[in-house]
């Protein structure tokens, strides 16, 4: 933030007329509510398959949708730290995306019910009769027990929601007085937030997902989930911006240069995801140790192979990489929208193939014997919570002007050029 940028902001004493509030396109709200209803019906139907499948699906959906809010908080923080001027014109959308954090407590509460009421989390129930598996679980009890698990989750939500709430509040204050000091304060908050973000996402991903296989070891799990979160987050951000643009908003301020930048982010996060996904697999495949290979054994041998090792890298890496490689494709809004949809489907496949099949050690669980297609209904909660997420984002966007015109980087963002 140089002086040249500071001079574009209005002095604090100047009287400011409030910008007209943004009213969200009704179609998007209807789509969001419709997805929520359809998804919840599918979720309820999935109890007919089994309670574990239903709550596996809910776990996928709640982590999937929480990832959008996590991504948005990360994007706001790194842009504040790196003076990402190009993002000043779009920053209202990630700000609105972070308002999903307080709402995400509700899907999490359903998951907590599932923790008690189903065999989803192996460690949450006493193991009768002992055995090697039960003994291993028992040794992890100081960390993996329901009370501490719930307490940790509340801490994560408090960190995420607290930091982003302050960042959004400062941005709203800047709308009124246009003071540059708010940008400096956001930056001061963003720096410690990045540290807390890295730690909390790693721990939360282990608590949320990896703990369904408590005897499996992977040292790459946190960064693997982070890669998936930012990749699907950029896909969602692109789709939200395109939906807003197609309904007549953001016209003079977001153009193909901004989408080009987002397209570069999408292809590079796809490559990053593939790198991390393959790193995790390669080291385990090479060293071939039972406590690590148990996770991949069930996915490498059997019908899940096609989902875990063919469809997953195809949707999350090969298609976005090859299609987005040429420059004109990153500036073509239709191609960008199509690739974003592919990435969002890929994110579901990534989580689905992770959550649903169980390793051989837990063969007694009902889901271990199901074929992939018998659990495809797990997509229900994903649809429901994406719908809820869209409604929350639209609600949050209506609380503020759609363009942060008082942001010191706003002019730079409008003239962003690639």
């Amino acid at each position, binding site marked *: 933030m140089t002086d040249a940028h500071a001079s574009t902001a209005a002095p604090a004493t100047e009287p400011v007329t409030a910008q007209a509030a943004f009213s969200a396109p009704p179609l998007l709200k209807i789509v969001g509510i419709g997805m929520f209803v359809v998804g919840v019906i599918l979720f309820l139907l999935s109890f007919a398959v089994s309670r574990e499948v239903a709550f596996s699906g809910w776990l996928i959906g709640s982590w999937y949708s929480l990832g959008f809010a996590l991504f948005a908080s990360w994007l706001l923080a790194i842009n504040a730290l790196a003076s990402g001027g190009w993002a000043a014109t779009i920053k209202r959308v990630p700000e609105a995306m972070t308002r999903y954090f307080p709402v995400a407590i509700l899907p999490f509460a359903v998951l907590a019910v599932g923790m008690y009421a189903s065999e989803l989390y192996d460690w949450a129930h006493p193991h009768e009769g002992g055995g090697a598996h039960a003994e291993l679980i028992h040794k992890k009890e100081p960390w993996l027990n329901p009370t501490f698990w719930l307490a940790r989750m509340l801490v994560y939500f408090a960190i995420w929601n607290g930091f982003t709430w302050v960042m959004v509040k400062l941005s709203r204050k800047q709308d009124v007085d246009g003071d540059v000091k708010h940008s400096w304060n956001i930056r001061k908050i963003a720096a410690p937030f990045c540290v807390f973000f890295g730690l909390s996402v790693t721990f939360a991903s282990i608590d949320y997902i990896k703990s369904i296989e408590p005897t499996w070891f992977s040292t790459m799990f946190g960064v693997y989930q982070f890669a998936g979160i930012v990749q699907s987050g950029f896909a969602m951000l692109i789709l939200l911006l395109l939906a807003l643009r197609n309904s007549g908003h953001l016209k003079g301020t977001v153009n193909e240069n901004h989408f080009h930048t987002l397209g570069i982010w999408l292809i590079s996060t796809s490559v990053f995801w593939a790198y991390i996904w*393959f790193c995790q*697999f390669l080291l385990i*495949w*090479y060293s*071939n140790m039972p406590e690590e290979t148990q996770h991949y054994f069930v996915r490498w041998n059997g019908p899940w192979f096609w989902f875990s090792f063919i469809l997953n890298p195809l949707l999350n890496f090969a298609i976005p990489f090859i299609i987005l490689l040429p420059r004109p494709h990153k500036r073509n809004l239709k191609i960008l929208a199509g690739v974003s949809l592919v990435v969002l489907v890929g994110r579901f496949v990534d989580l689905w193939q992770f959550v649903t099949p169980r390793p051989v050690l837990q063969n007694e669980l009902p889901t271990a014997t199901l074929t992939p297609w018998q659990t495809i209904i797990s997509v229900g909660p994903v649809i429901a919570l994406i719908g809820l997420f869209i409604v929350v984002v639209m609600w949050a966007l209506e609380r503020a002007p759609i363009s942060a015109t008082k942001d010191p980087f706003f002019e730079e963002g409008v003239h962003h*050029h690639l």
Partner: protein
Amino acid sequence: MPKPLFVGVFGDEDHILDAVKACRAAGLDFHDVYTPFAVHGLDRAMGLPFSKVTWVTFCCGALGTTIALSGMSYASWWDWPLNVGGKEALPFPAFVPITFELTVLVGGVCTMLGMFALCMLFPGKKAKMLHKGQTDDKFVVALKVNDKFDEKKARAIFEQFHVEEVAHRDTDYDANDEQAAKAGGAA
């Protein structure tokens, strides 16, 4: 055979950008534009097509992939099957890191070589400068003197955007070489 040029020297990147846009709008042909640093948007203002170097990168990257996969398959499976740690003879996951590295290496090195080739740069090439300041603080527009060229028009555009020096040169002219500089003639 040296070709005649009409040269304008500017002292500011914004002036040269505007002058280049005006010259293009007036239908004048560029020989080239020389700047001490990359001026953002200049290639677009000159109407240059997108660089072909991306194709060099793509094809050479694919070549690197092919070299890596075929080389490793030949050495550890076709020619003499190796048993490494009990893995299958054609262990694709083990090939991936080296395939990735060779794709990046061959693609990256060839991008650099391709850029040199497209810019006609090679070791021992003698640098010719239209103006001594073009690698320091001056911005030089060189227009082709062909049948589309109109000196009055060009001079008017240059002067409109605060040109510092206007001269007739040719493609053999070298500001570093006194004799050639004399032969090329001054304004």
